[in-house]
């Protein structure tokens, strides 16, 4: 009896511990099931695998673009693979198993560039692509060591959304470009009414440090030195600490609410419910704000007194896998995907071509204009492009930022984060 139990226990311990090890295998098994038939005369139809992180309406649009491409290129089948939330895991597993999709959405170039096809020779001098028509800053985000690894497909900068009705009710004039963080904080205070559970601004409980970079730059700070080698004196500089402390203080003094923690409503949802007057984000929630019936306005980010406003770009690009057997076809697909025709189909993305923006008069629409003026202000290089170990450093930085919005002192926790991260930069 005793022996039997010990055997049972041992096997249970073994199997349970191994569960985690097995998960990796599942992923790669997933990848292999979708192996394309590389047509060696066996079939006329060439299959191009295209991996996307989008779901819902955006995915629908991408499938439509794929269908149009198929119609223009007889004998081609574009297999749209929607990885959704599991995008990074599935993509990594695909590369790990040497079976990646041919074309994929991409943003994290430092992690993946070794497995991607450099596109300089494709892009330079390709008249159909017309590289000069793109907003020039966008290519920087997809370039590592002079090699271009992706063609910009979509981007967003970050702006402040405001609920016009709440401003009208409080008889406060709408914010204008050129406003300062002092203006911002005093407006937020005026619009906060705790009895009505109404707040001027929402601070995310779970911030992406990437998004906060724009503010840090605006205050003259940065996370890392320009050469990407030093964080001490940058990540924990006064400028960086003060910027992050500002958000912690707004939560502390009650002029902003902490939103989007676990089991809490997201800031977007509260904004849609008309209980947050100002919200800071990219283009993503705009459509849902409108659908919720909010009379929404957008404005450039506030400035720190005497310092220029800086922005941060979240960009999505299309890349080709180094191991792809259909690189030329993949290039054709990418070109179509960023053509005027396809850009106009992708209504949720901000157009990456100046000609399309002019044609659609997006830069004159007051709702869209701030995204483009913020783009002009986005000439700093984000930290993850400067150091290949940034993911590790960011783990500590994220923890520090979380601590600040929960009440810790920014300078202290950032010093601590620098101390714990420096080993990665050796």
């Amino acid at each position, binding site marked *: 009896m005793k022996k039997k139990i010990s055997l049972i226990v041992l096997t249970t311990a073994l199997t349970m*511990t191994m569960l*985690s090890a097995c998960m990796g295998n599942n992923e790669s098994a997933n990848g292999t099931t979708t192996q394309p038939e590389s047509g060696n005369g066996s079939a006329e139809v060439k299959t191009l695998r295209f991996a996307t992180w989008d779901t819902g309406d955006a995915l629908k649009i991408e499938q439509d673009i794929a269908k149009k491409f198929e119609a223009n290129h007889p004998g081609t089948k574009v297999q749209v693979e929607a990885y959704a939330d599991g995008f990074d895991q599935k993509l990594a597993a695909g590369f790990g198993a040497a079976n990646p999709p041919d074309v994929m959405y991409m943003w994290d170039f430092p992690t993946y560039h070794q497995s991607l096809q450099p596109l300089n020779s494709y892009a330079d001098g390709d008249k159909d692509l017309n590289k000069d028509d793109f907003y020039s800053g966008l290519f920087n985000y997809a370039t590592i060591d002079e090699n271009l690894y992706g063609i910009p497909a979509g981007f967003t900068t970050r702006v402040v959304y405001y609920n016009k009705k709440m401003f009208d009710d409080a008889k406060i004039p709408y914010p204008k470009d050129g406003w300062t963080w002092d203006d911002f904080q005093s407006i937020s205070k005026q619009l906060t009414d705790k009895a009505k559970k109404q707040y001027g601004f929402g601070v995310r409980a779970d911030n992406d440090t990437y998004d906060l970079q724009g503010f840090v730059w605006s205050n003259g700070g940065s996370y890392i030195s320009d050469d990407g080698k030093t964080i001490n004196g940058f990540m924990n500089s006064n400028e960086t600490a003060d910027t992050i402390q500002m958000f912690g203080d707004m939560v502390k003094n009650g002029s902003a609410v*902490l939103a989007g923690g*676990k089991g*809490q409503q997201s800031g977007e949802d509260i904004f849609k419910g008309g209980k947050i007057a100002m919200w800071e984000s990219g283009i993503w929630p705009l459509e849902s704000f409108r659908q919720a019936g909010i009379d929404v306005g957008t404005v450039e980010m506030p400035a720190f007194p005497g310092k220029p406003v800086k922005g941060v770009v979240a960009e999505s690009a299309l890349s080709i896998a180094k191991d792809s057997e259909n690189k030329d076809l993949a290039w054709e697909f990418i070109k179509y995907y960023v053509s005027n025709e396809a850009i106009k189909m992708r209504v949720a993305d901000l157009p990456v071509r100046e000609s399309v923006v002019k044609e659609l008069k997006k830069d004159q629409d007051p709702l869209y204009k701030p995204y483009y003026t913020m783009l002009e202000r986005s000439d700093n290089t984000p930290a993850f492009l400067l150091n290949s170990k940034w993911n590790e450093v960011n783990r500590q930085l994220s923890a520090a930022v*979380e*601590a600040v919005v929960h009440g810790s002192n920014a300078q202290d926790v950032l010093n601590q984060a620098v101390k714990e991260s420096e080993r990665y930069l050796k």
Partner: protein
Amino acid sequence: MAHTYPQTAGKQSASLGPRRNRRWVGAAPYLFIFPWIFGFLVFTLGPLLFSLIISLFDWPIVGKVHFIGLGNYVEMFTDDPLFWKSFGVTLKFAALFVPLNIAVGLGLAILLNQKTRGNAIFRTAFYLPSVISGVALAMIWSWVYSGDYGILNYFLSIIGVQGPDWLNDKHWSLVAMVVASLWGQGSMMLVFLAGLKGIPKDLYESASIDGAGKIRQFISVTIPMLSPTILFNLITSIIAAFQQLTLALLLTGGGPMKSTYFYAMYMYENAFKFFKMGYSAANAWFMFLIVLTLTFLVFKSSEAWVFYEGEMKRKPEKKSKSVRRGRSA
């Protein structure tokens, strides 16, 4: 069996030769067991050994793999504050969860062992949570714990207590996780219930004749008779506590401020968020050794407190005699 089969088979087809038949017959058990063996080797033992091997490598999914010996283990112990932090969280969780889990499971089993009306309904009701999948369970609890709209704080407000925002308060989040984990432990209760049912009635009868009250009976009859079941549940509880991942992943994401950042989650993130497969495998092997050691210690200690039916606790030499007798029979 291997003896009789060839004889009859040999009669039927003598020309083919009995030797060949014998070979097949000998293989039969292995053929039957082959699917399992195959699965075990490919999906269990293989990955297990593989993970031990990759724990000695710097093994990113994307990029170059290279051998670093015990480098992962050294980094883990000497250079990674998150390793100790998450290990501490898991230890704290286990220290709270394991005793409570045993106590709640046993308590419920004893209540359900009473002969009351509607017993079957209660049994079903208490077992029901363990049928719910971990993900659904996490969703339910995230509603229960919600600071503003949660039912828990609503009940607390009725008695005039302003409840915390359970999952977003670093002082309460781990407690919240323990309680949520306790909820789905119907299977443990069921094992206890089966154990209780297995205790012979006459023991209680003779105990009460000897004048033992309910509490005395519980301590002197129920607990010793149930001790093998307690041992089993204790070990599975410990393992479950160290493996806790689903709830952390879904309920708190390890936060706030890493207060529920379990070791399993640390391991998971190293593997599937930061793609450090080698490092994560090293994490996993450390956890495995810890669990194995704890299990071993519990087993060692069990000689002192676990009683098996028919076993008599006597002086050592007599005990060894009874073992020998058991073997020859």
